[in-house]
Each structure stands twice: as structure tokens, then as C-alpha cells.
């Protein structure tokens, strides 16, 4: 197979820059900031190059780069992307420079260390989305925890240590089970293939043949790890704490990208590797997803802390994504992929806006606000726009994802019941309640808090960060075709793999030849 090293360059850019940051004197704060922003922007531009070279008519993995790594165990440095991972790669490289700019003035201490961790975080996230080797995937998956742990633990709020440890242990617990499953899979491959392998593409043909009683355990081990990351109800309680304590940039990346790693994992591993177990588990997981949609919305509604409100809204929004994935129709999975991007944009924007106002007032209590529409009109507009996107107003991005998910899950032959969609759709009502109510209490009404009078409206830097996000919000809402087209082939391939798992023996398709 032809090698293409663009993805490797993509991941090397943040990796090398983060190491270089260590060599810059810590007093040169501005230089560090510019350096990181410029290099992460270069990474974004490179990912755009990849996007333009990507062939969306091809359902196979592209830009494959495969280098032997651990010879005895047949483990490779093996990366490549399809449409789904490309969209998430773009989301990652797009959000990273923006969040770096957004924390220009909010991160005051240890800028050097912050920048280092942040770029390392980008390495981890990109690695997760492009790995085609389970072992490599696992390394990135775990590696990404460390910078996030420090970002919450060092630059977070008052309860940052509790939140950081809770985040770490929750996710670590899940991933250990996944590690066991990965090793088991690699060993299982020895019988049909003749060799130990962690190569995802090979395992795609092997794993579906695992007997059902074992397949279900494999499925659960992977699903548990991903469900914690999503987070799926009732494994979500680390999220509000992590979000509230994390600095703005951390929250944006956490909501924008990290949570997507869970849903991406379900789509990339669970469904195609264990199709029969997935079908069996689909109704149960969908029930949890629907509970999450409603539960998250209801709990968001009664929050008094605006950041916690947005955090719980994530539980609700990600519930839609999981429902879309496990409804297993082309419409719903396409919707789920789009919804992952959407949530990154709209919730990312909401966290940025909360950060903007928090930086000025140092309070996140909704009751400390009120009537700021007159004082900071531009902020009021931006918050309205982001809220409407999150509410799923047609014409903006959120609608496209939710609509496709619900439309698909309604017809799903796997779920085979209207009730999932009926209950999930009620989330649409509650979303309007909690966001508009929050908006009303923060922005409308008379000004009650005297301190708010001196509030300054958004500055040029803050507008600059939000503008590209808002443009994408409209773009996705009006012309989602740009993005739907990218993932269309890879999602339909996933659907095919679920319904027609490879039932031929590997000898027939010639996989065994290499080992002889």
C-alpha cells in the first residue's frame, strides 16, 4: 500500500511545537502564545490540505501511513482516516488555535506549562482519531488523559483537585477494561490469521466471527470505556465537576473534542467489530441515551451555575449522538456524526461566552446577572446566537444533526419502536426551556447587580475567536452537504458492516497467506 505521511506531519506539528515550547524562556510569555497559535494554525491549514485531497467517494481508509513499531508483537504505527475521522480531525485542529487565543488573558500563571500541555493534548486527540492500530489507539487514548488532568488540576477553579482526580479515575477505570479486551482480540486473531495482531483493518474481518457469548463481553469492555467518555447516563457525574472546574480553554476542548472520542470509539470500534452484540445491546444503550437526553435537560434546567448548566446540556446533546449511533440507520448515523461537530461548535461557543463574562465578573451564578443586554449588546447577541444553535433552531447547525438522528431512529429496524424517538424528541422542548430561561435571567430584565454597570463588551480578540465558529454554525445549518458528503461513504460502510458482517473465513479472502 502506498504510504502517505501527511497525517504523521499533522501530528508531529503540535508534538514538536510542544517540545520546543519547553525551550523557550518562561518570561517570554507573549512569544510562547504567538508561537503556539501560529503552529496550531499551521496544523489546521495542513488538515485543510488533507481535506481537499480527501476522496469522499472512496469508503476505504486514506492517507495511510504504516511503519513497523514493535516487531515481535506485530504492532505498527498505523494511521489513516476515513470521512468520519476526517471531520473530527478538522474539528480538533480548528478548535485548538481558537481556544489558545481565547485563553490569551485568562491564563496568567505558568503560561509555558499550560501551552505545553495544551499542545500535547492536541497530539493525543489527533492520535485517537487517526489510529488504525488498537495498541496505538490505546496509547493516545491514555496519553490524552495526562495533559487534561493537569489542565484541570493546575489552572482550574476552587475544587480543581477533586474534579481532576474524579475525571482521571473515572476514565482510567474504563480504559483498563478496554485494554484487556484489546489484548484478548489480538490473541483471538492468532487462530484464524496465524499471528497476533492489533491491526484494526484486519480485525474488522475477524472480530465479527467471535462467538456471541464472548462478543458481548468484548462489546461491553469497549462500550464501558467509551460510555464514560461520552458520557452516557449514569456515568456522567464526572462531567459537571470537570467542566465547572476547568479553565475556559479546557472546557471548550473537553466538550468540543474529548467527549467526541467516546462516540467516535463506539462508531469506529463497537459497531463494526461486534455487530451482533451491538444489535443486541442497541435497545438497552438507546434507553440510557434517551434517559440522558431528558435527564440532562431537566437537571440543566434547575442549575444555578451557568457553566454547570452548559455541562449538563452536554449530557443531553451527547445522548442524541448515542441514540443516533445505536439506531443504526444511515440517516441517524450521519446525523450523529454531524451532531458531534455541531456540539463541538455550539457548546464550544457557549463555554467561550461563559468564559468571556466570567473573566469580567468572576461569578458564574445566574442570579448575579440580569439586564446585561443594554450594557454589553454584542455579548447578548452572541449568547443568543450560540443558544439558538444549541436549541436546534432550523437554519442553524444543531437542527440538522438532531433532525437526522430523530428521523433515523424513528424508522430504525433495530430499535423497532416509536417510543425512543418520542421521548428523545421531548428533549427539543426542554432544550428551549433551559437555554431560554438562562438567557432571560442573564440578559433580559432590569439590571439588579450594580457591579454589572461597568461591564465591557466583547473585545476584538474575543470576537475574532467566535466569528469563525458562528460562520460554521450557519454553514452547517444551511448547507450541511459539505460535511454530510465527507462522511457519507464511511457511515454507509458502517451500516453495511452491521447488517452484513463478514461471514467468510479469512483463508478465503487470502488473509492467511502472509503468515505462511
Amino acid at each position, binding site marked *: 500500500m502506498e504510504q502517505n505521511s501527511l497525517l504523521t506531519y499533522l501530528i508531529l506539528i503540535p508534538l514538536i511545537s510542544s517540545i520546543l515550547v519547553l525551550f523557550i524562556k518562561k518570561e517570554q510569555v507573549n512569544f510562547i502564545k504567538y508561537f503556539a497559535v501560529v503552529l496550531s494554525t499551521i496544523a489546521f491549514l495542513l488538515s485543510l490540505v488533507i481535506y481537499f485531497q480527501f476522496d469522499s467517494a472512496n469508503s476505504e481508509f486514506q492517507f495511510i501511513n504504516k511503519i513497523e513499531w514493535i516487531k515481535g508483537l506485530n504492532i505498527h504505527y498505523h494511521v489513516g482516516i476515513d470521512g468520519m475521522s476526517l471531520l473530527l480531525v478538522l474539528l480538533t485542529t480548528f478548535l485548538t488555535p481558537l481556544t489558545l487565543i481565547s485563553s490569551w488573558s485568562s491564563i496568567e500563571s505558568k503560561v509555558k506549562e499550560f501551552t505545553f500541555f495544551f499542545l500535547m493534548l492536541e497530539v493525543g486527540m489527533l492520535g485517537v482519531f487517526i489510529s488504525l492500530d488498537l495498541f496505538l489507539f490505546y496509547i493516545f487514548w491514555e496519553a490524552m488523559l495526562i495533559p487534561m488532568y493537569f489542565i484541570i488540576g493546575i489552572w482550574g477553579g476552587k475544587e480543581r483537585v477533586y474534579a481532576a482526580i474524579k475525571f482521571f479515575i473515572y476514565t482510567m477505570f474504563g480504559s483498563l477494561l478496554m485494554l484487556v479486551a484489546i489484548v484478548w482480540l489480538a490473541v483471538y486473531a492468532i487462530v484464524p490469521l496465524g499471528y497476533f495482531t492489533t491491526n484494526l483493518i484486519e480485525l474488522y474481518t475477524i472480530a465479527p466471527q467471535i462467538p456471541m457469548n464472548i462478543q458481548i463481553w468484548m462489546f461491553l469492555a469497549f462500550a464501558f470505556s467509551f460510555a464514560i467518555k461520552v458520557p452516557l447516563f449514569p456515568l456522567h457525574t464526572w462531567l459537571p465537576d470537570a467542566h465547572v472546574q476547568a479553565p475556559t480553554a479546557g472546557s471548550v476542548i473537553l466538550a468540543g473534542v474529548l467527549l467526541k472520542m467516546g462516540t467516535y470509539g463506539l462508531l469506529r470500534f463497537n459497531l463494526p467489530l461486534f455487530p451482533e452484540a451491538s444489535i443486541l445491546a442497541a435497545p438497552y444503550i438507546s434507553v440510557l441515551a434517551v434517559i440522558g437526553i431528558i435527564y440532562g435537560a431537566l437537571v440543566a434546567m434547575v442549575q444555578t451555575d451557568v457553566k454547570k448548566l452548559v455541562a449538563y446540556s452536554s449530557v443531553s446533546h451527547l445522548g442524541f449522538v448515542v441514540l443516533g449511533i445505536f439506531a443504526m440507520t444511515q440517516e441517524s448515523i450521519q446525523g450523529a456524526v454531524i451532531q458531534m461537530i455541531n456540539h463541538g461548535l455550539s457548546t464550544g461557543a457557549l463555554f467561550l461566552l461563559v468564559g468571556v463574562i466570567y473573566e469580567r465578573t468572576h461569578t458564574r451564578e445566574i442570579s448575579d446577572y440580569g439586564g446585561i443586554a443594554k450594557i454589553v449588546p454584542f455579548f447578548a447577541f452572541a449568547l443568543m446566537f450560540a443558544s439558538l444553535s444549541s436549541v436546534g433552531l432550523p437554519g442553524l447547525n444543531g437542527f440538522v444533526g438532531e433532525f437526522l438522528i430523530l*428521523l433515523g431512529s424513528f424508522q430504525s429496524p433495530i430499535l423497532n419502536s416509536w417510543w425512543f424517538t418520542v421521548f428523545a424528541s421531548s428533549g*427539543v422542548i426542554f432544550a428551549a426551556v433551559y437555554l431560554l430561561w438562562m438567557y432571560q435571567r442573564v440578559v*433580559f430584565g432590569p439590571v439588579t447587580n450594580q457591579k454589572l454597570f461597568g461591564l465591557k463588551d466583547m473585545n476584538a480578540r474575543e470576537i475574532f475567536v467566535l466569528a469563525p465558529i458562528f460562520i460554521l454554525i450557519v454553514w452547517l445549518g444551511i448547507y450541511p*452537504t459539505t460535511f454530510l458528503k465527507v462522511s457519507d461513504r464511511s457511515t454507509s460502510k458502517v451500516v453495511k458492516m452491521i447488517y452484513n458482517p463478514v461471514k467468510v473465513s479469512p483463508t478465503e479472502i487470502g488473509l492467511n497467506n502472509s503468515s505462511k
Partner: protein
Amino acid sequence: MRELIYLTVLLPLIGFLINGIFGSRIKNEKLIGSIGSGVIGISFLIALGAFFETLGLPVDQRQKIVTLFSWMSVGNLDVSFAYQVDQLSLVMALIVTGVGFLIHVYSIGYMHGDKSFWRFFAYLNLFIFAMMNLILADNFVLLFLGWEGVGLCSYLLIGFWYDRKFEKSTTSDAAKKAFVVNRIGDFGFLLGMFLIYMTFGSLNFNEVFSRSVSFNVSTATFGFIALFLFIGATGKSAQIPLFVWLPDAMAGPTPVSALIHAATMVTAGVYMVARTSIIFASAPDILMVVAIIGAFTAFFAATIGIVQNDIKKVLAYSTVSQLGYMFLAMGVGAFSAGIFHVMTHAFFKALLFLGAGSVIHAMHHEQDIQKYGGLKKYMPRTYLTFLIAALAISGIPPLSGFFSKDEILWYSYANGNLFFWILGAGTAMMTAFYMFRLYILTFEGKERFGHDKHPHESPAVMTIPLMILAVLAAIGGFIGIPEIFSGEHGNQFHNFLAPLFKDADRKLATYNMHSHFEEILLMVLSVIFAVGAIMFARYVYLKKPSIAVNTAQKFKGMYNLLWNKYFVDEAYDTAVVNPILQTSRSFLWKIADNKIIDGVVNGSAKIVDVISINIRKLQTGVAQFYALVMVLGIVAAFFWIILSL
């Protein structure tokens, strides 16, 4: 002109963008107002051109679809930004842009001096943009974009004066309530779309409607689809049980009430039922539900309207009531009669609201009709146009309301039953009564306002739209003269729309032959009721005001019930809103999340902690202890091996 129909959507959007982005810097009210009104005026002319072009075409060529670009294309789903020109969408487009244009012009005067003048016009334009999407869409999803879009504009405009008090709360409470209640309806609409897609494999009107005829679909499925769609309609068009938002929507500026909450947006539900007539006609049970809900809404809203004292509140309940009429028409299968009433109602109700706005403007934002009186000599143009509108809504021939209302009443009897007619005629009588109560207390009789108020006629920019609407309210009914008067030509309006409802009509086929005698008898009766009610209102409020006071005192319970709008809001709060809030706060968040789930998580951490602390005690660091344990271990192992041999 038909292929240019997309401009009627695009121009308002451009107006919105110009005023929305540059408005705060333009500062010149005349320029902002001209841009805002101009784009709607041009849209109206385009729609008019398309209308005349369509009139010249043979019936089977009257539908044209203009596709701009694909929106969502996944699996079987393929929806576009595509606009459909046909008889129904043209009628609606003319109403929306025509009445919309007049209200825009009126707003230049009404909003004069408001610090957010530009924002007002931006929102109004955005509203027209969304509304045009709603009525011109060639598929359900684009219709839904407009459907939610008008809801958003309604939200923004109800809360336009976001720092003002409104009744017991604020305008933003009213705005939020409108949006949320509408969303409950939208929930139904969404489910309807999902079921349509599942049943017919498409969401494009032409495909769905032709498959509704050709596919073999069970009545139950049609029933569910129709029911879901109708839930959507009850939200948008303020019917029982979701009407509660509309009276509160009066918190917005009066031109908004005229445009959105009377003439156009609230009729979207009626339009949608008419558009999907074939689906409703295939579900006769649900059609009956539509008729019953419509008739009851018409009746109950009218009873509330009788006792209200806020000029806009009376008009709001009147709107709910009139919308009920339109659904009654839909329910008995008189689709074109319902659309006809949409049109005449747009004329006279917009006129009533704008007239009310003119009065409120003159009375320095006083809205209590008990503090008006004798205004006709101060504002002759407002007075005269208001009178025409009041006569029109009361159904006095030959004004427009007479024809449309009478047609509905006739069909409610001919296609339905006597019960519907009685509810309808009773509503007509109450309507005439409360409208003239409103009119008399405002314009006739003694002046009941203080000397600090100096009422004056509004400027020409406001009164000219009033006069144009008055002409329309007066003669607008002539395009739909019933067959018994017009003879061989039949009902022109009905004939124009008929091709759209032909499948539905064929499916229903319930039109029983009734004699012309019956038709004329019922018509005469309803006119007598209306005139009687007007005379009675004159007598009570001009000659013997004590009657009203005494009646209110005598039937205090009834009066209280009506005055408090049957306590529906309070009932919803107690039965739905508060329980959800309470459960979410005190159980889901504080107990389920913080105690149970986190308890398990932190608990398992605690257990690990406790175990570790105890195990750690074994690590004493004393070598002799380790040696002892080792020896014991070896001995134990030794015995185990021997025993197992």
C-alpha cells in the same frame, strides 16, 4: 415572475441583514424604515406578478417549483431549499407580503423615537423571511424551518421591550412562554414528519401527497400523522390546549400583534392543515377532532373576550376565537372556506390591531378601555376605519367578514351538524357583542380619561395603512361571493383553490345536498344575531352602563372565571410546570445525581481506600515478621501439595 418567487424570500432576508448589521449606525429612522418596508413592498409586487401569471395559465400548469440548492440528502431523504408556486401558496404570499407591507409602513410612525428602531425593523424583516419559507416551501422540512423561524421572531418581538414589566411578570416571560408552548407543538410536528417519512419514504409535498393517494396506507397511520401535525397546529395557531401563549404575546409592540399574532403567523397552522388536506381527509376521525377543537376554541375564547378590559387582550382572545373558526372549517372539510377566512381575517384583524395601536399611541400607552371614551372626535380616521373593521368581524353584510364567516357557518352545518352551527353562531353573536363593547367604550360615550391625556390623530404614515386595510376589509369578501348569489360563475375564490383540495374532497365526499332555502335561512339568522348583539352592546354600554355592572355582580363566580381566563394558566403551572421543576431540582439533581450516582462512585473509591489502609498495616517493615509469614506460607503450601497427592 414565477421563477423569481425566491426573491420574495430573499429580499426580506437582505433587509434583515442590512438593518441588523448596519442599523445601529444608520440612525436615520426614515432610511431604516424605507429599507425595511421597501423589501417587503417589492416582494409583494413579485408575488402579485406571479399571481397574475398563474391566473393566465391552464389549471394543470399552475404549479411550479423553483429549486435553489440541496439542503439535506441522506439515505432516502432529499430535501432542498425549493419554493413552490401554486394557488394556495400565492394566496398566502399575497396576504403576508401585502398586509406585511402595510404594517411595516405603519410601524415607521408607531415606532418613531424608539431607541431600537433598527432592531425592530430587522426582526420584522426576519419574520417575513421565515413566513415566506413556511408558505412557499415544497417540503415539510423547509416548512418547519419557517415554522420555527416565525416562532423565533415572535419570541424576539414579544420580548422586544425586554426591560419592561408586563402584567405580573416581564415581557421576556411572555416571550419565553410563547416559544416554549410553540415548541410543544413543534414536538408534535416533528413526530408527524418522522411518521410521514417512514410511511411514504419522502418529505417532499408532491411525493407525499401523490403517495397518499396511491399507497395502501392504513387509516390508523393516517390518523397518527394527522394527529401529530395537528398538535403542531394547535401550538402555532393557539388552539385548545396550547392557546395560552397568545394572550401574553400582546406584551410585544402593537404592530407585532397585528402582523404576527393576528394576520399571518398564527394562521400558519390553518395553512398547514389545508396544505396537507389529503392526509387529514384520509383520517376522518382526526378531522372530527379538528372540528371539535376549533369549535370549542372559538366559543370559549369568545366568552373570555367579553369581560376583558385591556384593548389588546380583547383582540387577542378574538383572534384565538377566529382561528377556532378556521379550524372548524378545516374540520368539516371546507378547506377553501377556511383559507378565505384567513384572508378576510388578516384584513380586518390587522386593521383592528393597528387601530388599537393608533389609540394606544394617542393615549400614551394606556390600554384599559375603561379609561377611554369619546375618542371619535379626536381621531376621526382611526375611528372610522376601526368601525368598519368591527362591522366586518361581526359579519355584517356586505363586508368581508360576512362572506367568509357565513361560508364557514354554512359548511359547519352542511358538512357537519347542527351542534357545530350552534357553537359557531353563538360565537358570532358574542363576537359582535364584545367588539362593539370595545368600540363603544373606546370611541363613543363620555370621555373617561384625565386631563393629562391629549388624544390626537396619528400621522399619515399610520392612518394611510389603516385606510387601505379598511377598504380591503370592506370589499375583500367579494372575491368569494357564494354560489347562491353569484349564479353560474360560482364562488371565484373557491374555484381558484379547488384543484388543490380535489383529492381530499374526493376522499371525504360527504357533501350532503341541502336546499338553498336552508342556506339562506341560516344566513339570515346569523345576521340577525349579529345585529341584535350590536344593538344590545349599544344599549348596555351607551344607555345603561349599570346593566353590565349589575350582571357582573350577580354572576360573580362566572365573571371571575371568565376574568381569570378559566384559570388555565394556573392549572398548567400546578399540574405541569411546577412538578417538573420540583422533581428536577430536589430529586434528579440533588438526590439522583449528587447522592446516588456520585455516592456509588465516591463510595467505591472509599472502599478501595479503606481496604488499602488496612492492607498497608501488613507492611510493617520488620524483617522477622516477613520471615515468619514466609515460613508459614511455605508450610501451608507444603501441606496443600501433600494433601492433594
